[in-house]
């Protein structure tokens, strides 16, 4: 009973081919147009999964650009997908936090990955992957994938305005001019992301175990900041950026079972 989960985010497209309890194949691409990347991705996962298009019984799409896609069986919100994907790897998870490129969301779940409460970031982009990417490239002349290691070197906390991404840029410029060590600035940025998430979590309550998903979860510095500021252990799956697509594929499995 093969299903496909497709997560079309602001910057990346992820696809998982899933059969009952296991992942058959997957696809990840950055920066391509949605429809084209999904077509390319489906072709790849079908080929690598050793199956054919006709074998995929249900396709579910999620992500901010899901409405651009044609030919999907269902479109669902990221919150549902990250809940189901998070609990796949961590059955004891009861809070899943997704920090993606353009948004962050937190969901409290039951033992089946069903949603109890959900919260999404307010209209500002601070506290998202895009915020960190912009800071890394524009302000600090760094690769975003190096941010984590850099912040773990920091010994001093630096406060960065966490209310607005634009004001945060201004804060960072000031710190650079004051010759504050780069690792401290990066840690300050990670702390501001964690504080934003913490504020968001308060509206739904934090219940361990807590899982972090989305591409930003690869950043060890963000994970460290979140553990410190939320005051709890944070679990991160091996490929956190794929969790939305995985959750969509699992949801598709459940729908097929219901129909049977």
């Amino acid at each position, binding site marked *: 009973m093969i299903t496909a989960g497709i997560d079309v985010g602001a910057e990346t497209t992820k696809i998982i081919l899933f059969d009952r309890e296991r992942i058959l194949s997957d696809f990840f691409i950055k920066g391509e147009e949605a429809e084209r990347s999904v077509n390319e991705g489906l072709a790849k996962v079908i080929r690598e999964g050793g199956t054919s298009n006709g074998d995929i019984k249900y396709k579910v799409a999620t992500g901010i650009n899901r409405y651009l896609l044609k030919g999907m069986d269902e479109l669902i919100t990221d*919150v549902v997908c990250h809940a189901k994907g998070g609990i796949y790897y961590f059955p004891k998870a009861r809070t899943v936090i997704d920090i993606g490129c353009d948004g962050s*969301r937190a969901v409290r779940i039951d033992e089946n990955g069903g*949603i109890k409460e*959900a919260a*999404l970031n307010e209209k500002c982009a601070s506290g998202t992957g895009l915020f960190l990417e912009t800071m890394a490239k524009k302000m600090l002349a760094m690769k975003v994938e190096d941010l984590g290691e850099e912040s773990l070197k920091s010994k001093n906390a630096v406060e960065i305005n966490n209310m607005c991404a634009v004001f945060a840029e201004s804060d960072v410029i000031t710190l650079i001019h004051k010759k504050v060590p780069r690792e401290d600035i990066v840690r300050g940025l990670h702390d501001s992301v964690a504080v934003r998430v913490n504020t968001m979590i308060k*509206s739904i309550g934090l219940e361990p175990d807590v899982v972090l998903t989305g591409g930003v979860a690869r950043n060890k510095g963000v994970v460290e900041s979140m553990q410190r500021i939320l005051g709890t252990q944070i679990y991160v799956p091996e490929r956190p950026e794929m969790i939305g697509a995985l959750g969509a594929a699992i949801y598709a499995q459940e729908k097929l079972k219901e129909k049977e």
Partner: protein
Amino acid sequence: MKKPLYDIKPKYDLQENKFYSWAGETVKYLESSLEEGFDIEKWAAYHAALPVKEVLEHPDESVFCNFIIVPEILRLYDLQFLSLENISVALDYAMLMNECVDASGDFFLSKDVCTVHRMLLGALVLGYMPRLKAFMQVGMCHCGNKTVKLFCDIAGSEFLFIDIPTLVRPYQDFKTTAMFKYMCFQVEDVMKKLEAITGKRPSSAKIKEVFEYSNQANEIYEKIKELRKHTPTVITGIPAWNSFLICLNYAGTKRAIEFLNITYNELKKVIEKGTFPVQPEHYRVLYQHIEPFWWSGFNQWLADKYHAAIVFEEVAETRSPYEPLDPARPAESLAEAFMRAKIFFMATEDQRAAYAADKCKEYNAEIVIHGSQWGCQWCHGALSVEKKRLNDRGINFFAYDMDNFDSRSFDWKHIEDRFDAFFASLPKKPDRKEKRK
């Protein structure tokens, strides 16, 4: 008219601007279309456009006020009533809301003034809102208190004000002699001012006529509300709310009776023919505060995407339960009616939750949705308290921040995600059988 305090000329001529054209053309089109066959959406739009058209044509015989007013007081002097809600809906249909909001920018209004009052100020400055005989403020809406007097100073219009000290239910607990006397004094004072600006004094026959029309119309409105209790419901969202607007806009006139009778009879046919607006109806919603005015399709979106019907709106309850006006004691009767105005916004979260829970039971609703208007001090509060109280009673509660008058203030996809998450968290959709009330 008085001399305006400020020399601010309207940007557009009243009878040559887009809004004026829109009102005339829309009424003409809808009247013709409705003759071919009744359609509830068109009927709702008609009752947004018609009062506005009439006010635009006769601004010197019209008074603006918010929906807490007892409009019969204006009808005694043959004045047209333009409600804040009515002109806001009309500006939305005419796609002029954003332009009006932007036009208010020069006034440096303080940040806590909500968008609707900014929009109306902009509408006045642009010339879409005419310079009326009077602008009235009723109750303690702080945004209104900051702006409505300004409208008068710009327009050279009379400013009328009625303070309602009893905005927390039940008003009977606060109906002390002193308070009642205060209300009667205010009503009589406003009546004297209306007499001065119109040159009319209502006769006993006139008072009797206006009050009797009002009483009859409100009886019909209560019957419409009873129909909404039917499962599935007969009308949802903005079209439903517009039947409240009919009651409000034409209060005290024969037209209210005629229009409400049409509405009632058409809604009865919905039951007879089974043409319910939301099928299948999986969720019944009590809506708190206001829906996005800039999106008249909001309730249809809820219906199409989630099979959710709005069966009750708080804002349409300000005059309920209605008590008949007594022509033998006009000022006192009007004073009592003002005191009965139910502004649940001012209640504590516990009171609001208790009221919502009672109404959910009455209307068989299992969800309360709260559209929190940015800048409106009347809808904020500890919604988490209300949520807990309702959850404890088995009622699901969802609150979201919105700007109901400026669609540019937020990203709709983001809000939609939150709606998706909320409905995904609900128990499996109930299989709802038809229930007659």
